[in-house]
């Protein structure tokens, strides 16, 4: 199975270990992974600021790069959600249609496409899951607390395959962390307050490691935790699933 690896810009720049874990996870599950070096970004930073019209070339470039791949996988529900939901403003070429239909978040890909039932991973720690909003409410990787329907959690499913993991319950299961792209700087006070409150919830529930599918949320939470010189360790879910140790 030929899988194109999409490593979002900020993961490429700041968190290469997340890209590496995603690549290794795919390889372990017998995917033939290709990584087009010309990739940059999904265009979400511009679009969420109201400038989606400026990102059209980026959309087409990305679609062109991955057209030969059966699937495209990224360690970021947020970017995947953007591609699926907001690439509707450009001409729906075969490349664009293919990209929108075949792009998956890594956890979603493991559960829905590879249909894995076990993982060679152990992580003997108390872990708090931050259910990032785009993955949760945009893609239903978990059950949003607002909805009264039965939506099985894909995050829980894969995390429970990890040996020794102790998943914490939180007081507020799925409140937003306050990152929100440019929101993080445009609404700095609310953004940081939201992040502090999320961290406090994890602390109150004795979380040792805070994980999530979206590194952007984690970057924001990590930034606050580091400044406060307290709080849980921050690890992307791909690293836990890949069996990486602390």
């Amino acid at each position, binding site marked *: 199975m030929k899988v194109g690896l999409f490593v979002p810009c900020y993961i490429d*720049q*700041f968190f*290469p270990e997340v890209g590496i874990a995603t690549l290794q996870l795919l390889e372990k599950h017998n995917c033939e992974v290709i990584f087009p*070096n010309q990739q940059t970004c999904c265009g979400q930073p511009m679009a*969420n600021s*109201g400038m989606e019209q400026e990102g059209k070339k980026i959309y087409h470039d990305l679609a062109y790069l991955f057209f030969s791949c059966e699937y495209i996988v990224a360690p970021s529900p947020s970017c995947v959600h953007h591609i699926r939901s907001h690439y509707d403003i450009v001409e729906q070429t075969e490349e664009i249609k293919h990209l929108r239909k075949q792009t998956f978040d890594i956890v979603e890909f493991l559960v829905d496409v590879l249909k894995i039932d076990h993982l060679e991973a152990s992580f003997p720690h108390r872990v708090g899951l931050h259910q990032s909003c785009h993955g949760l409410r945009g893609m239903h990787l978990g059950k949003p607390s607002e909805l*009264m329907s039965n939506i099985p959690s894909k995050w829980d499913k894969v995390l429970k395959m990890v040996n020794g993991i102790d998943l914490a319950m939180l007081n507020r299961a799925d409140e937003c962390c306050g990152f929100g792209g440019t929101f993080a700087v445009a609404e700095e006070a*609310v953004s940081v307050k939201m992040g502090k409150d999320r961290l406090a919830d994890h602390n109150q529930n004795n979380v040792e490691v805070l994980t999530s599918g979206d590194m952007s949320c984690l*970057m924001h939470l*990590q930034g606050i935790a580091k400044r406060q010189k307290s709080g849980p360790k921050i690890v992307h879910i791909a690293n836990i699933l890949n069996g990486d140790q602390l």
Partner: protein
Amino acid sequence: MSQHSKRADNFIKDEARTDWHDKALWHVREKRDASAEQLPEWELLRETASQIKDNVLSNLDNYLVQFETEAKKNGVIVHWAEDAADHNRIIGEILEKHNARKIVKSKSMLTEECKLNDFLEERDIEIIDTDLGERIIQLRKEPPSHVVLPAIHIKKEEVGELFHQKLGTEKDNSDPTYLTKAARTHLRNKFFEADAAITGVNFGIAETGGVVICTNEGNADMGCHSAPVQIHCMGIEKLLPKAEHLGVFIRLLARSATGQPSTIYTSHYHQPRPGAEMHVVIVDNGRSTHLGKEDFRNSLKCIRCGACMNTCPIYRRSGGHSYHSTIPGPIGAILSPNKNLKEYSDLPFASTLCGSCSNVCPVKIDIHEQLYKWRQEIYKNNELPKSKTIPLKITTKVFENPSVYNSLGKIARGSLRNLPGFMIYNNFNAWGKQRDLPDAPKEGFKQWYKKNRNE
């Protein structure tokens, strides 16, 4: 800084109070969840309500005419107001005809939108808000901070002090039962004296020409039953086709708002009492223009339950007044730009697009998607500040050119201070005020890949 972010910044300065505000509203959200969970058909109810409202918006012209015809048959006097000034003028004329000087009003966001109180007070007409929360903020000369809980931003100790000053209650007594009793006595006298009663409308029924008003305090009834003139102010979007549709909305409204199965009072008004007059003022005030905007029209489905405010993590931490518009919170952020894009261009950005608002909405308005779409409109209309557009245009150019991106990354990691704006754009200070930057790795993923996978 935008208006919203300035006000939010100010609100959050008192962190203990922010926590109190957040918890108070989160508690309401939890009550909503608990009550929705009890109905296995909850999601079906939402879908049904959404479709009924879609039908209403698509056939609004017919339903409005039908409503007017039926209401007139019942002896109701129907008025049409094109805008807020028209609405106020019509009410002024009705009151003048009856020489009404003392008016009681039950909760109405529409009269708030039209600034009816100011209009009447300028004409020396006393207008008393009779909903307890509304009365509190009226005495404080403040706008409501929430559509259902207008005084949610005020602590009981502050109400105690306010009532001590305005209603003569004991100093330093903030016992809720004591204060509520004092308010009741005060308001009872106002009801007895009233020359006319004004209410908002939760639902107008096209089939019957009746209006339905939901309250917890019975204040709409006390006003309408004691005053010789009753006036109901209704936005054009408040209609339901038939009485049988009410059940769907009554079951959703209070559960979404406060977690109650229904409001304590659900009052149906069809005709005037013998010897009294009943008026309905149907108000457009920009709604028909709004209806013509395909991407945004379905926000007119809103039934003003306030659930999106209770769930919004930004609203809970910035307060209703930070939205500087009649309707605050996520729904206010998509309604207000219809009225004035320039003035409210900051509101669609007062969101992380987390989507919780859309999930709690009982009529399934795609609130967060509309926030996203308003952002695009704001850019198209040149209302985005240059401090935002210029760095983002540069970022776009970088992303369009992989070779530039690839080489800039190395420089950026080497010296984060010179970062070209991949993630943090131009505003380093805002990121770093209370947050650290991530440690710069020696190499990015692309470099690692090249080395380790022999490309």
